């Protein structure tokens, strides 16, 4: 008869890291009222500027979507639903010293840093100049290889600090990208080097058609941060104030040399993944309807109205201004000289090897240099 092994002892409490749960930080309720005792760090003027940027983003989404359907723009991803998350965090930055390292769904943050809207339209018309940040604009190019930008942000933050700057770097990525090895490697390194970087993880519920429950078994992405030796924060990503305060706190920590912060902004993608996607194949219409009720723009609007900072008539006027702004950028992009073969060869090397030179000469023979 075999002897039964004794039951193993359970690990003692001090040695056991157990799954934890978090509740998102909310400061602005869906009806536009503030949490008790809360006074926003954003001045009224800044708040209006933030709201303007949120509306601009929505206007771009709508205009660009229809341009795409008309064949005047390529495939792109809308921000719709995530405006509080992107704008609230971007407003914690000082564009004169801080950097944004984007994925591809953070246009308003790039605009606030100084990226010209015309270049956005050029980029999605397929013109390479669209991904060139003008000198002085502290933004890395759009990143299509998911999560690859996260290590860049850490290196940038580390390098700036080592050269005496007190700049912070904010990098954006999605719940899908968070599963890539780059996300882990980058956050781990950031902790070790106390890099002044803010990881702004936009959990919008989806990676194309894959729901967030298939990316992680954890209750919140923010829980990863303590494992890397720095704090994580879960915020209501549809709450401009909560996102802003969390980002501000993280940026202050970065400036003060206290190292990185991970912020999970829990938001919701109201549109398709991109213009080539059909979300009716996988999004439950009832859920979408419920999520639309939580539109981040509606929430800020309710607050602005209650505070009498922006009347309906003033907003109407603002909207028509924004439409003009967007149309002007579209017109400028459409009038831009088309890309040509030379763009295939330019900026590959500072000094192209003879082979590349010869290929360029053969490919562009007879074409005048523009």
């Amino acid at each position: 008869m075999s002897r039964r092994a004794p039951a193993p002892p359970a690990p003692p409490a001090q040695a056991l890291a157990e799954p934890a749960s978090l509740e998102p930080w909310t400061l602005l309720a869906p009806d536009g009222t503030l949490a008790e005792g809360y006074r926003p760090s954003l001045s009224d003027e800044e708040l209006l500027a933030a709201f303007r940027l949120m509306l601009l983003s929505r206007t771009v989404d709508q205009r660009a979507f229809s341009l795409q359907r008309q064949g005047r723009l390529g495939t792109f991803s809308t921000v719709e639903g995530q405006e509080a998350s992107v704008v609230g965090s971007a407003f914690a930055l000082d564009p004169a010293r801080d950097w944004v390292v984007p994925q591809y769904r953070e246009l308003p943050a790039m605009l606030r840093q100084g990226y010209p809207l015309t270049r956005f339209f050029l980029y999605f018309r397929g013109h390479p100049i669209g991904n060139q940040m003008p000198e002085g604009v502290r933004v890395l190019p759009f990143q299509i290889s998911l999560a690859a930008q996260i290590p860049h942000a850490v290196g940038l933050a580390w390098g700036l600090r080592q050269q005496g700057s007190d700049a912070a770097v904010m990098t954006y990525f999605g719940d899908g990208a968070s599963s890539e090895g780059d996300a882990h490697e980058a956050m781990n390194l950031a902790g070790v080097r106390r890099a002044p970087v803010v990881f702004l993880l936009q959990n919008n519920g989806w990676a194309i058609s894959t729901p967030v429950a298939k990316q992680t078994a954890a209750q919140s992405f923010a829980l990863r941060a303590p494992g890397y030796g720095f704090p994580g924060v879960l915020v209501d990503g549809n709450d401009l104030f909560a996102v802003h305060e969390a980002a501000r706190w993280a940026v202050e920590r970065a400036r003060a040399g206290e190292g990185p912060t991970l912020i999970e902004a829990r938001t919701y993608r109201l549109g398709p993944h991109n213009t080539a996607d059909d979300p009716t194949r996988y999004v439950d219409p009832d859920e979408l309807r419920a999520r639309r009720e939580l539109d981040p723009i509606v929430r800020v609007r309710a607050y602005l109205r209650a505070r009498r900072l922006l009347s309906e008539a003033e907003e109407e006027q603002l909207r028509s201004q924004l439409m003009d702004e967007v149309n002007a950028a579209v017109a400028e992009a459409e009038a831009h000289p088309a890309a040509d073969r030379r763009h295939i060869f330019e900026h590959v090397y500072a000094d192209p090897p003879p082979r590349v030179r010869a290929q360029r000469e053969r490919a562009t023979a007879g074409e005048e240099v523009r």
Partner: protein
Amino acid sequence: MAVMNMVEAIRSTLDAEMARDERVILLGQDIGHNGGVFRATDGLQERYGEDRVVDMPLAEGVIIGAAVGLAASGLIPVPELQFLGFGSQAFHQLEGQVARMRFRSQGRFGMPMVIRAPFGGNVRTPELHSDAHEAKYANSPGLKIAMPATAADAKGLLTQALRDPDPVLFCEPLRGYRLIRDDVPEGEHTVPFGRARGAREGSDVAIVAWSAAVVVAEQAAELAAREGISCGVLDLRTLVPLDVDALREAAAACGRVVVVHEAPYTSGFGAEVVATVQQEAFWSLEAPLARVTAYDTPYPIAAVEHQYLPDAERVLAAVRTAMEA
């Protein structure tokens, strides 16, 4: 001139360039306190501090990925892959990010950096430490690739790489670290990229090689000379840019070309060399172009690696065949 082995040449060059340009910072696994597993960075952390010789977490992807950000911040990072074979863990950052960031950003973010990577066989390392992966990177536009075969060139090419505005993959032959010893010019010494080195003059067969395979090519040329066959040896030095002129001239001078490399045959960089020679010197050729390489099998463990890698005898056989054609 000072006689140095290759690892001494590399270490002293890193030292000199770090002293010359304070933007140069080194990052890698075990490179600081330990001075690198091959001592290529020995003493540098003591001299330049922990901010400039940085021991990194064990993650190749972020060693290369962070270097992208460091370069964007205005520094000149020199990330070390402890072994080129583990570059696969960073390949997406190398070919997808480092190599094309200048292009993607339309010139706003150049990527001055040197990725140092030891590789190569016959030193009885564990699996994946020896693989010659250079061709994988040669197919990644935006990168340059330097593969020195002498200590003098290690200095000259590394100095050049550190001053290049574009990223350079700098492959260092493990076998050569201590075995390759030669006269290294003192003081300022650069070797321009894309200029092959005539390692040996010859009129019958041109043997083309790079890195440690140049030594094998020279041994084969020596053996062939005893049989009255005159072999030239052309050391390419850099694969990107490629010295097409030197290849054309060598092929034209001898009419027979044998390429030697440590990587497997199919899609090795030798394929690029023979295609180039065929295009450039077809009418001068007197024999089919030959490649003496590793086999199209994974790199084996130590007991048989000397039979896997090209050696002087196999090169000599290819030389004889070319002469009989």
